[in-house]
Structure formats: structure tokens, C-alpha cells
């Protein structure tokens, strides 16, 4: 109809389904032939990720072309819906000043059908999918390169890469998903591979337990996914089938959710069910406890799965099916909604917990949880684009932080993650790691001009803009806390005096068990020092065994590479290039990725390329459409038109709403045509709005630094000798003097009365109550199982069966005396029965 003129497509867009397919194939190749390959299969994994990255990049380029083709060439036109048929026929248009709805590139193939229900596989490529595809392939590639060094010599090197590749494939399948079934497929593949990867060093029971817990917790959420999908399917089915699609299609679901006929109750239950899945997967309160435990996995795994990809799957689901949540949970309609509340709680809780961690990876894990809370909250307050943008920036800097942590343990702290025991002062030994860490930390904390600033601040800003004042403050407090705990971690790791392993020491003195293992490992290492090939299982296992002595923490990456070329005696040093290069790339991105959508400097590419326009498409009878009508003739009524019942909230913001929306996509379904996304407004960027957050960040960082210096600066470190104290020089001396009143203030006032009790209490609550509930749920389920089995199954049900047998047998026993063996009695019985029978029957018959 109008379509032909506008949208461009291209080979990369049309064939985006190849992106997950390549790693899937690679997985089987690695599994089948990996062990026989010179690099143990890692080359296949890396190559596949590279190929996917290239495809994703190509698709991204073409998508941008496509978006621009709309904006450039089809002013005022309205498209017809053609997308369902699976071709990429362009059909959207834009009206007035708003962005047009850019028809996603959808292709699908029937997977199977039965009983009138069709399951399809395919691709649904829009800005969101493209963005995540790019991030996932990119991060995966870097992590795989990093891993070649990090897990070198591991006894299951090949399996590791196979699982890593499959993981990426799963994520990509999910991202591309055209239907909910495909979404579930990818989602579950990720769940499985995360189980394998977290439990990679399963010789240690703690690791496999963590893997189990991760999978199980996520699986609890998956229940919601299954149920939610079912609810949504049947809700949307009729609407979708009338338009030649089916109720699994993500596009159809989106359209249905915003249509007039959608049953709000169905939507609500569907959204709640799906959100439960998100809570599980994205580590939101109260199902967040699996995430820190999952740090038991190798660091690259943590970096890939638990920072930048898998855990954002939940956020992605909300973003993907935003119309469902938007309408179902009344986002923007009421002052409070489930998504925002959970997100907000998560931000604060997780940030508080990050304070009291000694394990560097756990700090990062809680930080991830907290950041996911930001994303969730962003989605909950209607800040779709900033939230999605935060996915983007967070992926880079959090990945970088994890890899840096890995780098530290790999080369700096002798496979320990304990900041207090084995780190400190590492900046001197590991400059690259330090630099990238610092950059990423700044990004994470939201220091201006680093990427996190642009995304996180936008979320906070939009919360305020959309009238969610409470969440605005939550965001601000969260920002301050983030700055504070990251400063603490940074200080402990890179500043101060080297301690423990970082000081080149070993634990012989204080940990005999560990020492034994260490020696064992060392023996092995010395024995095989000059053997070139890393596949020395024995050494690896020896190291593993040695590690059993470590009682603390969950994450000990010292498995499996007893002789990876560096001398354990040599103390901390910088990591090899395969670790540092990814770090540097990511560090660079941590700085610059934010500028893609930095209103401060005038870029709004995300809004342009990624955000789907909340406009009505397919109102066929009138080219200018009802939407234009609303916009042009009744500007005053805009807010109520767009947000329906949201008027009170948005009244203040009237007129501020900028460039998208305006087509009546919101709670009131369009009478004509279809909406695929709710119309959203963006807060206009003003520097003044960022001031509170910048100040708070600064406040948090400085307070924390001050406290850190006070506490950890130089006092009673058991490993510190006099020489080291002398080397402190002037600056150190000043701290020494200052510490007295700092100590008093900090320990007596703040620590003992405020900070510690609160954080500790939070941690206690977390470990004992929330985690206790999660674990307890598991345990009590098992107990229930045992009880039911023992009492109901074995006693009642089975007992009834056996008892009936016994009754039969005992009746037989009771009847045996009748057979007395005496003829007279037999005769009496015979005649007695005859007589009774005769009497009764005579009475009956005569």
C-alpha cells in the first residue's frame, strides 16, 4: 500500500536468524570435535562469536538505514500492517513530528502445530533486539578471548567453551525470538548452560550447590513464564488469529495488549506471571540470592552470565513485552506498580549488601543486582529507553569490572577473591587492570561523562519526570550507595598496603589445610614447570584438591590451572594480553558507549534507533489518522489522550513530553489500526537535573573513601612489617595520626551505631531470612517430600493397599476355625445353613 516507498531492509536483517544458529552449530562442533582441535575447541567458539558479531553489526547497520529511511522518506504516510505474514514489508509511517513506528523485520517458520495451535520459530528484529544482539555477541567474543587465558589448562577446557558458546546461542535465540515459545527455548537453554557453567568446577560441592541453587531459583521464576505465556496466549489468541498470526507471536501480543479488546484482568495476571519469571532471572528482590552464590563459577562466566547478558534476560522480557506490562500493571497509570517497586527495593537492598562483602566478586554481584534494579525500576516508571540504554552501557562496564576482578585473582591475588585478606595496593602491580577498573567504576557510579552517567541519570530523571517522586529518591540514594561501595572495593583492592597473596604471601602461617594444598599444588607445578602443553590434568586436580582447604567465600578461581605459565611465587603482576586486551576494549567502551544517547551532548541515537514509536499503525481509512487529529487539534488534551487515566500524574508534565507518541497508544486501545508500543515521553535533559545525583555520587564516594582510609588504611594489619610501615612515607604518616579520631568517629559513632548495624542487619536479613527463605523453601520442600512420602505414601496410601491385603488374609485366618475337621460340626453347619436359608426364604416368599 504505502509500504513500498519507505523501509529498506537488507541481507543482514533478513537473515539475522543466522546469528544464533552459528553458535548453536559451533556448540555441537566443539562438543563433537573440540578435544581433537589444537586449541581444544576454543577457536571454534571464538570464530562463531566473531561471525555472529559481524552479522549483528551488519544487521545493526542495516537497521539504522531502515530507521533513517522511514524518517527520511515517508512523512505523513501510514502503513498497513503487513508484518504478520513474515515478510519485512514496511508498513509504518510517521505523522507530524513524531517518530514513525518502524516495522520490525519478522520472519517465521512453522515449527510444529497441533490442535490448531501453531508454534513458530523465527526472528523479530527491531531496535531493541538489534541492540542486545550486538552487545551479546560482542561481550561473548571478548569473554571467550579472555577465557582462553583464564581457564587455560582446565581439565574441561573444551566443555567450558562448548557451554559458553551454547550459552550465547541461547541468549541470542531468546533475543531474536519471534514467538514466546522461542523465547522460552532460549531462556531455558540459558538456564541450563548457566547450571553447567556455574558448576563448572563441580568437584567442589559448594560450586555444584551454587549451580543447583541458581538453576532452581530461576526455575521458580520460570513457572511464571510458562503460566504467563499460557495466559497471554489464550488472551491474545483470538485477536491474533483474526490478523493471521497466533497468540505466541510477540508482535501480536504487543498489539493485542494495546488494543481495545484486551481483557485487563487477563493482562494483569499475565503480566504478574511473566514478571515473576523476570524476578527469578534478573535476580530481583526477593529471588536475588542466587546471584551472589553463582559467583562460584569461573570469573568469565560471572562476567558474561551474571553481569551483562543472562541476568538482563528478565529486564529484556519486560522491555520486549512492554505493552503487556504497561497495560497489565498500569505503568504510568498509578503512583506505584509492581515493576517499579521491585526494582526500587532491589536497588537499595542490593547496594546495602554490597557494603559488607569481602569477596570482590560478591561486591560486583550485588552491584549487578542493584543495577538490574535500576533497569527494572526504569521500566516500571515508564523510562523505557533509558532502561534499555542502561542494559547497553551496564553490559560494558560491568563486564569490564568482572574481568578485572578475574584478572586480579588470576595474576594478583593468587586465585583469591578476598579483598581483605589477599588484596590491597595492587594498582602498582597491575596498571592496566587498575585503569580499566577505575574507568568502569566511574561509569558504574555515574560519574559525569562516563557511560553510566548517561543511562542511570536518565532513569532517575525520568522517574521524576513521570511523577514517581519516591523512586526518584530511591534512585538517588542508590547512586550514592553505589559510589560508596565501589569506592570501598576499589580502595581495598588497589590502594593501601598489599596483604596476603597480594603481598606475595601464602597462607601457610594461618591456614594449615590450605597450606597443604598449596604445597601440593606447588610440587606439581615445579614438577611440570617446563612442560609446554597445559593439559596437565594432574596438576589441575592437585590444585583443586589443595583448594579444599579454603573455607571462605564461594569463589575460588584457582581451579584447574596449576601451571599456566606464571610462577606462583612471583607475587602480583599484570595479566597477559589475552586478559588485558578485552579489558582495555571494554574500558574504552565504558567511557564512550554512553555518548550514543547522551542528550547532554546532543546525541539521541537510542531514542531514534531503538525505541519503537507508540503510534497507531494500520488505520487504513484515513491517512492522516486519528492520531494526527488528536495531536494537532487538541494539544491540551494530549496527556489524557495518550495516557488515559494517567492524567493526574502527568498533568504537571504536560507539554514537556517530547518527540514520541502522540498517537493514542496507551490504555485506551486504538479504534482503528494497531499499536505495538505504548507512547512514552522523555524528560528533557537539563544539567540542573543531574546535579543532585552528581552531588550524591560525590558524597557517597568521598564518605566512603574517608571511611576506608580510616578503617583499612594502615591499622593493625597482621601481615605488615615494620619495613612496610616505614615505606608509607609522609602521606601514610598523616593517616596514621588521623586515624585516631577517625576511628573514634567511625567505629563508635557511624560503624557501631549506623552504617554497620544497618548494613550488617541487612546482610543478616539477607542471609538468614531472604536467603533462608529461599534455601528453606528448598529444604522444606524436601522435608515435605520426605514427610509425605513417609507418612502419606508409605503409611496411608500404600498402607491402605497393604492393609486390604492383610484384611483378606486375616479374614481367611479367622475363618479357618470353621474348618474344625469335625464331621458333626460340618453337618451342623450344613443343616444350619439350609435351615436358615429355608426359613428366610419361606418368610420372604410365602
Amino acid at each position, binding site marked *: 500500500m504505502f509500504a513500498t516507498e519507505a523501509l529498506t531492509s537488507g541481507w543482514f536483517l533478513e537473515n539475522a536468524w543466522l546469528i544464533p544458529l552459528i553458535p548453536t552449530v559451533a556448540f555441537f562442533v566443539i562438543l563433537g570435535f573440540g578435544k581433537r582441535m589444537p586449541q581444544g575447541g576454543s577457536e571454534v567458539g571464538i570464530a562463531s562469536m566473531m561471525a555472529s558479531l559481524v552479522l549483528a553489526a551488519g544487521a545493526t547497520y542495516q537497521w539504522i538505514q531502515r530507521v533513517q529511511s522511514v524518517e527520511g522518506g515517508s512523512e505523513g504516510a501510514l502503513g498497513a500492517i503487513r508484518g504478520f505474514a513474515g515478510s519485512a514489508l514496511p508498513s509504518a509511517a510517521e505523522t507530524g513530528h513524531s517518530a514513525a513506528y518502524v516495522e520490525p523485520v519478522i520472519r517465521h517458520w512453522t515449527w510444529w502445530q497441533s490442535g490448531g495451535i501453531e508454534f513458530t520459530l523465527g526472528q523479530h528484529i527491531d531496535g531493541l533486539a538489534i541492540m542486545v544482539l550486538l552487545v551479546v555477541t560482542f561481550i561473548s567474543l571478548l569473554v571467550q578471548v579472555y577465557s582462553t587465558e583464564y581457564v587455560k589448562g582446565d581439565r574441561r577446557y573444551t566443555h567450558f567453551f562448548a557451554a559458553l558458546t551454547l550459552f550465547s546461542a541461547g541468549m541470542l535465540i531468546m533475543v531474536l525470538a519471534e514467538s514466546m515459545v522461542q523465547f522460552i527455548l532460549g531462556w531455558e537453554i540459558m538456564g541450563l548452560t548457566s547450571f553447567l557453567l556455574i558448576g563448572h568446577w563441580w568437584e567442589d560441592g559448594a560450586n555444584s550447590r551454587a549451580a543447583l541453587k541458581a538453576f532452581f531459583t530461576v526455575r521458580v521464576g520460570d513457572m511464571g513464564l510458562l503460566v504467563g505465556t499460557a495466559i497471554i496466549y489464550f488472551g491474545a489468541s483470538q485477536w491474533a488469529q483474526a490478523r493471521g498470526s497466533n497468540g505466541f507471536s510477540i508482535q501480536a501480543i504487543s498489539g493485542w495488549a494495546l488494543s481495545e479488546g484486551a481483557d485487563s484482568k487477563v493482562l494483569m495476571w499475565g503480566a504478574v506471571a511473566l514478571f515473576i519469571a523476570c524476578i527469578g532471572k534478573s535476580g530481583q528482590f526477593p529471588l536475588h540470592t542466587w546471584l551472589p552464590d553463582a559467583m562460584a563459577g569461573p570469573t568469565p562466566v560471572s562476567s558474561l552470565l551474571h553481569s551483562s547478558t543472562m541476568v538482563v534476560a528478565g529486564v529484556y522480557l519486560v522491555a520486549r513485552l512492554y505493552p503487556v506490562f504497561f497495560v497489565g500493571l498500569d505503568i504510568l497509570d498509578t503512583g506505584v506498580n509492581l515493576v517499579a517497586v521491585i526494582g526500587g527495593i532491589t536497588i537499595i537492598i542490593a547496594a546495602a549488601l554490597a557494603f559488607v562483602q569481602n569477596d570482590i566478586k560478591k561486591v560486583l554481584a550485588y552491584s549487578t543486582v542493584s543495577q538490574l534494579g535500576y533497569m527494572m525500576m526504569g521500566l516500571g516508571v515508564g523510562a523505557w529507553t533509558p532502561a534499555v540504554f542502561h542494559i547497553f552501557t551496564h553490559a560494558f562496564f560491568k563486564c569490564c569490572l568482572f574481568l578485572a576482578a578475574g584478572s586480579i585473582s588470576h595474576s594478583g591475588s593468587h586465585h583469591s577473591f578476598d579483598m581483605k585478606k589477599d588484596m590491597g595496593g595492587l594498582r602498582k602491580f597491575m596498571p592496566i587492570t587498575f585503569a580499566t577498573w577505575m574507568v568502569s567504576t566511574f561509569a558504574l557510579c555515574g560519574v559525569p561523562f562516563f557511560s553510566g552517567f548517561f543511562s542511570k541519570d536518565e532513569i532517575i530523571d525520568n522517574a521524576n519526570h513521570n511523577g514517581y517522586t519516591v523512586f526518584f529518591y530511591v534512585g538517588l540514594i542508590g547512586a550514592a550507595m553505589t559510589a560508596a561501595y565501589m569506592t570501598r572495593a576499589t580502595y581495598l583492592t588497589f590502594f593501601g598496603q598489599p596483604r596476603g597473596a597480594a603481598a606475595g604471601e601464602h597462607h601457610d602461617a594461618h591456614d594449615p589445610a590450605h597450606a597443604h594444598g598449596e604445597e601440593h599444588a606447588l610440587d606439581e607445578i615445579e614438577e611440570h614447570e617446563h612442560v609446554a602443553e597445559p593439559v596437565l590434568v594432574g596438576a589441575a586436580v592437585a590444585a583443586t584438591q589443595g583448594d579444599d582447604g579454603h573455607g571462605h567465600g564461594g569463589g575460588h578461581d584457582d581451579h584447574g590451572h596449576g601451571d599456566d605459565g606464571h610462577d606462583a611465587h612471583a607475587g602480583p603482576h599484570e595479566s597477559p594480553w589475552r586478559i588485558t586486551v578485552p579489558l582495555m576494549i571494554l574500558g574504552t567502551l565504558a567511557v564512550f558507549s554512553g555518548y550514543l544517547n547522551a542528550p547532554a551532548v546532543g546525541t539521541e541515537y537510542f531514542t531514534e534507533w531503538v525505541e519503537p514509536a507508540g503510534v497507531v499503525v494500520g488505520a487504513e481509512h484515513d491517512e492522516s489518522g486519528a492520531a494526527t487529529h488528536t495531536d494537532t487539534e487538541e494539544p491540551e488534551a494530549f496527556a489524557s489522550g495518550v495516557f488515559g487515566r494517567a492524567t493526574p500524574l502527568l498533568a504537571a508534565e504536560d507539554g514537556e513530553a517530547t518527540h514520541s507518541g502522540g498517537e493514542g497508544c496507551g490504555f485506551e486501545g486504538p479504534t482503528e489500526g494497531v499499536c505495538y508500543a505504548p507512547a512514552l515521553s522523555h524528560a528533557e535533559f537539563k544539567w540542573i537535573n543531574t546535579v543532585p545525583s552528581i552531588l550524591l555520587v560525590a558524597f557517597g564516594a568521598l564518605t566512603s573513601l574517608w571511611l576506608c582510609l580510616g578503617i583499612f588504611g594502615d591499622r593493625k594489619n597482621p601481615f605488615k612489617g615494620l619495613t612496610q610501615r616505614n615505606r608509607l612515607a609522609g602521606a601514610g604518616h598523616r593517616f596514621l595520626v588521623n586515624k585516631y579520631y577517625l576511628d573514634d568517629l567511625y567505629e563508635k559513632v557511624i560503624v557501631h551505631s549506623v552504617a554497620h548495624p544497618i548494613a550488617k542487619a541487612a546482610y543478616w536479613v539477607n542471609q538468614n531470612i531472604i536467603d533462608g527463605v529461599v534455601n528453606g523453601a528448598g529444604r522444606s520442600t524436601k522435608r515435605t517430600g520426605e514427610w509425605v512420602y513417609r507418612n502419606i505414601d508409605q503409611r496411608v496410601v500404600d498402607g491402605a493397599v497393604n492393609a486390604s491385603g492383610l484384611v483378606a488374609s486375616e479374614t481367611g485366618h479367622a475363618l479357618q476355625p470353621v*474348618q474344625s*475337621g*469335625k464331621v*458333626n460340626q460340618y453337618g451342623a453347619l450344613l443343616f444350619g445353613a439350609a435351615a436358615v436359608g429355608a426359613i428366610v426364604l419361606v418368610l420372604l416368599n410365602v
Partner: protein
Amino acid sequence: MYAVNFLLLSAALFCIGVFGVIARRNAVMVLMSIELILNSVNLNLVAFALMNNDVDGHIFALFVIAVAAAEVGVGLAMVLMIYRNRRSIALDELSEMKG
């Protein structure tokens, strides 16, 4: 009127016979009791034959008498056999098999 008397007599004999079978421990006495039952049947049959003016009852009675003779023959043989083996014909001792 007559017939009823016959039938009552027969029923009485039958009951005595049944009592004997149930109550007597001596095998020979039990045999006798059974003979009593059979004779009460005969009495019945003959009485009915007269009442119905029908010859079938008489014939039936003859058959019963003949068969009863055979039965008693077998029965006495068995009692003898038991006596040989056990030196007793008390029936309540014959309870090796039960249950």
C-alpha cells in the same frame, strides 16, 4: 387329614435324624441317623403317592430304599476300616485335617 399326620411324622423323623447326625459321636449312630432321614423321605414319598394317587412316589421310594442299602453297605465298610486303623469309631477324633 391323614396325609398331614404322615408328613408330620416324617418331619419328626427327619429332625431326629438331623439331630443324630449333628450330636452323635459314634459313627454307627450317625449312620443310623442318616437311615432315619432316608426313611422319613420314604414315608413322605409314599404318603404323597397316596395323596396324589400316583405310582411314581412308590417307585421313587423303592429306589431310595435300594440306594440306601448300598450306601449303608459302603458306610459300614468304612466304619470297619476306621475301626481297624484306629480302634475307635468316635467321629470327633477324626480331625487330623482341618483349617
